[in-house]
């Protein structure tokens, strides 16, 4: 008999209350119960990073986190990365540099990169390599992925700067 537990979490800014089987992972609940299929399933052992989401701002392999543990947290998935009608600078940069090939790892890459830029808005190339080391890409489009993150960091920095100039007026 499956034991179910009620949990409440904020997913992409929206409050969700749901009963989850206690053995189901956050990944399963996102994909199968909330139908947020942008988060991908691959290795299920926390090695490939395809299922990366942000939990309270930190990048997490959702295959390693029980859904029950996500009770009371705020989750951001790839579906919540863009503002309405406005891509995240990372998404725009991934398109610009041709970083997405087959695309299957890309949601995870983007969420890991977002968590990285939130912590470190101006990373070096080596810091980007470290930040994305848990996200496998078998198309091996790493060069263009890393380039995209560096481009996005520049764009973001320029946006921050212009916002500061704006605020100073």
């Amino acid at each position, binding site marked *: 008999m*499956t034991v179910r537990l009620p949990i409440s979490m904020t997913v992409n800014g929206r409050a969700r209350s749901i009963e989850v*089987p206690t053995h189901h992972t956050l990944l399963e609940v996102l994909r199968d119960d909330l*139908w*947020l*299929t*942008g*988060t*991908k*399933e*691959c*290795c*299920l*052992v926390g*090695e*490939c990073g*395809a299922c990366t989401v942000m939990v309270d701002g930190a990048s997490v392999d959702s295959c390693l986190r029980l859904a029950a543990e996500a009770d009371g947290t705020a989750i951001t*998935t*790839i*579906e919540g*990365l*863009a503002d309405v009608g406005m*891509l995240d600078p990372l*998404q725009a940069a*991934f*398109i*610009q*540099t*041709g970083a*997405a*090939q*087959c*695309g*299957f*790892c*890309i*949601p995870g890459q*983007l969420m890991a990169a977002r968590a990285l830029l939130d912590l470190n808005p101006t990373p070096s190339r080596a810091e*980007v*390599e*470290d930040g*994305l*080391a*848990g*996200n*496998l*890409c*078998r*198309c*091996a*489009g*790493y*060069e*263009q*992925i*890393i380039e995209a993150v560096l481009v996005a960091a520049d764009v973001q920095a320029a946006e921050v700067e212009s916002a500061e100039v704006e605020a100073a007026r």
Partner: protein
Amino acid sequence: MSEGRIGDSPARVGGFDRVTGRQAYVADIRLEGMLHAKLVTLDRARARIIGIDTSEALAVPGVRLVMTAADLPQPMPRFGPQFTDRPVLAVGETKYHGEPVAAVAAETLDAAEKAAGLVKVAYEELPAVFTIADALDPEAPLVQDPTLRPGEPLAATNVLREHHFGWGDVDAAAAEAEVVVEGSYAFPMVTHFAIEPHGFIAAPDGDGLAIWSSIQHPYWLQRVIAKLVGLPLAKVRVHAPDPGGAFGGKQHAKYEPLVAFMALRAGRPVRLVLTLEETFQAVRRGASEVRVRAGFRRDGGLVFRDIEANYLIGAYADIADRTVTKGSYSANGPYMVPSVRIVARSVFSHTTPSTAFRGFGNPQQIWAVESNMDEAAQALGIDPLELRLRNLARPGDPFIPGDRPADGDWAQAVHRAAELIGWGGPKAPGRGRGLALGLKSGPTTGLSYATVRLLADGSIIVNAGTSDMGQGARTIFAQIAAQELGAPIGWVTVVMGDTAVVPYDQQTSASRSSVLMGNAVLAACRDIQAKLRAMAGLLEGVHETVIVVDRGEVHIGERTLPIRDVLVRGLGRLGGEVIGVGESRKEADPDHPLGGTAAFFEFNATAVEVEVDRDTGDVTVTRHVTVSDVGRAMNPSQVRGQDEGAAITGLGHTLMERLIYDDEGRIRSLGAIDYKIPTTLDLPLRMESDIVENEDGPGPYGAKGMSEGALLPVAPAVAAAVHDATGVRIRDLPLSPERVWRALREADETPDSADPATFDPR
């Protein structure tokens, strides 16, 4: 953002969905009433199935079906692209670790998984073979029942086929050779590790059947399913969502036949998504042992090559023997050699069926032949770059007699790679450089149709049956249509992946699609241009022979009109559209050893610089230069992505990847924890990719196929660099820290061990 003309790098068509999570892969598709399936497998490679008890499994709430061999038509339906040897479910015995003996379908995946664990299989382990040596032993148990290959002379052995290629007289030529260099080179089993595990859905569809699969060859799959379930082609609809990485592993049917029979029996959609571990058990690259004997004059001129290769394929043939054939046929590489003898065998074993994998049988041969070339350079005292250039085929040279002559100025790529790496220049202490060349035959046959619809407002729909698995085919076809019909690329929609809607395409493989389907799309656009000429002639009252439609414009004498102006006036008030049909064929040649000449050759020159940690054996690639001859880069950004991606994938099998089997034939490096592929921390410190463009390919605008070339010579280039840095010669892949460390230690103990095995034949 660019216009998206040929030579631009517009945003990838499909890129927006890929960065927003909207791209729907097979596992993202939900159908009403869909059941979830789970395979039942044994923890053994080869076992005789004594009995299967499904009663406990059937008692699990939510279970709707437990299918065993007994529930399938008798005799067991079999399939396979080269030999119809693979059963839908194991019958009588399992032949490899992970071969399903039954499958469960249930309302939830939880129930299916639970029930799969409750299917009781009584079995008896049988003797099995997992290595080339064991499989070739005359006393070895046979992997396949000889009756599956009636009339085949080797049916009573574990050799599926033995191939002989070559020209000239190697034995006579041996007398002319002044230096002979000989070596044996091993390439391990590696697995595709597409980040998207294989997924399949089958569903009753009116009076037919619908299949969803992350398949590269949807039309081939359609034929397989139609034949197995006894339906006409038109009643089998294959949906092929973009694969989340395929690399050859998703060319041919795997478990689609199983889910098809399950869906028909259950009368409901059935979905099977493999775990990564199950995917490892489903596809891999063939391992190989290749012996190379090459004869040279003292000036470096190649006199003969004698190559003998054994490829360890799996328990069923899949497309493995074709990889052996195609990889071995061109094993002599891009060189002019008067006498060549190649013998290659595909050897069955009780392991995962090997299949196509980026490079298609060539990386194994290139590892051997290019490593041997480096040893020859050492033995002859000639620079490895010079030795290659001295023997390299020039444009038009018949380097494989009877095939397409050398179709590129390959020396340009070689010189460029050497120049970029600074070949011959000073090196930092402890660093070494290596260089190698890769050549691969493109498709030998092909048939692609495309339809292009020019709509009333000048926007365009392209129907093309290629699978866009990341190579970016959709973008290329949109660029061709935009270029030819004068629309911005944002006005082009490319429809793929539905056999009920999109016309036939033979397959997505061998880096063919930009060339073969590209030509079909181009032909369809030219068909539309012809119709526009007739339309403009009527509108303007001139004979259509004075009208030229080219690259988006209509030229009538001195006047030039945009295509859209003619279209809008020509279609008139009812609107409508202009439909173009394109066909592109690469004809077969039944007398050719491969069934057809190469449509083009992929050529790549790779040069690397490495640093070896003598304490740990760790190899760091400090620089990686890859130069491909692509004819014309229709989309330079995508070309770069393919070349750099192929190069890094090549570093995987070069430095770290290997499937490890235990004595019972079970994969021990099963899954992402134990099987390492390159991450961002394994990249070369500096990656430089460049291309040669001479517009000398058979594709649109002079393009050649590309996507595999940059993978081909990675391993021999790195091994040569390791030798240059350390003096140790390693002939087994991967060059893992352990293996390099052991080789370094051995070299310290026996300093001559790295010398090439050479002899003066006289």
